[in-house]
């Protein structure tokens, strides 16, 4: 499985992928900053990553998950720094032959990301 991981401060703009003729399914998740955190209105979240370890852990998670859910490729983009309400903190795109492994890998990756990948919301900016 091809794995591409991008962790930086840039606005997330998912590229238009060239679609291999064996790909029948593209499952995507975008995590967006909501206008409240712990029931208080906010204008932005601030994310921090321990970049080399975050990338290593994501890559291992994805490789593990691909054994159970064979997919063609995964691209993860995680933004850091100040991210305003309505903007994307993460975008994950999974290409596969069929939709079932694409959905399964995507959902499982998001669960594990939130347990094991060294990225943190370190602050909120008030509304």
């Amino acid at each position, binding site marked *: 499985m091809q794995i591409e991981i991008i962790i930086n401060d840039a606005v997330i703009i998912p590229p238009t992928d060239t679609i291999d003729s064996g790909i029948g399914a593209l499952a995507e998740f975008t995590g967006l900053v909501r206008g409240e955190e712990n029931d208080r209105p906010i204008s932005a979240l601030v994310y921090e990553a*321990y970049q080399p370890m975050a990338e290593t852990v994501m890559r291992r998670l994805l490789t593990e998950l691909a054994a159970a859910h064979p997919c063609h490729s995964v691209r993860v983009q995680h933004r850091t720094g100040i991210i305003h309400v309505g903007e994307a903190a993460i975008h994950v795109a999974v290409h596969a032959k069929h939709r079932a492994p694409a959905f399964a890998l995507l959902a499982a990756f*998001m669960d594990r990301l939130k347990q094991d990948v060294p990225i*943190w919301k*370190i602050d909120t900016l008030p509304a």
Partner: protein
Amino acid sequence: MTVLYFAHARRISTVAQEEITVTAPLSSAEFWDLIIRRHAGMAALRTSSRLARGNEFLPADAVIAPSDEIVIIPPVSGG
């Protein structure tokens, strides 16, 4: 030994990174005892945080060498 602090751990330690001279290998428990002696507030993170070395989480029985770079990983919240 080099210690890296991220997120809430850095807020408590007030440093991103520090060198700590140790003369013998440490267990995880000894590492935490040492860190809490230097930064009392780190006691609040002891049970919830994990340690990492070389981009991998440390197993509970790991031995930390005097030359290691150890990263304190508070509970994560990405995505």
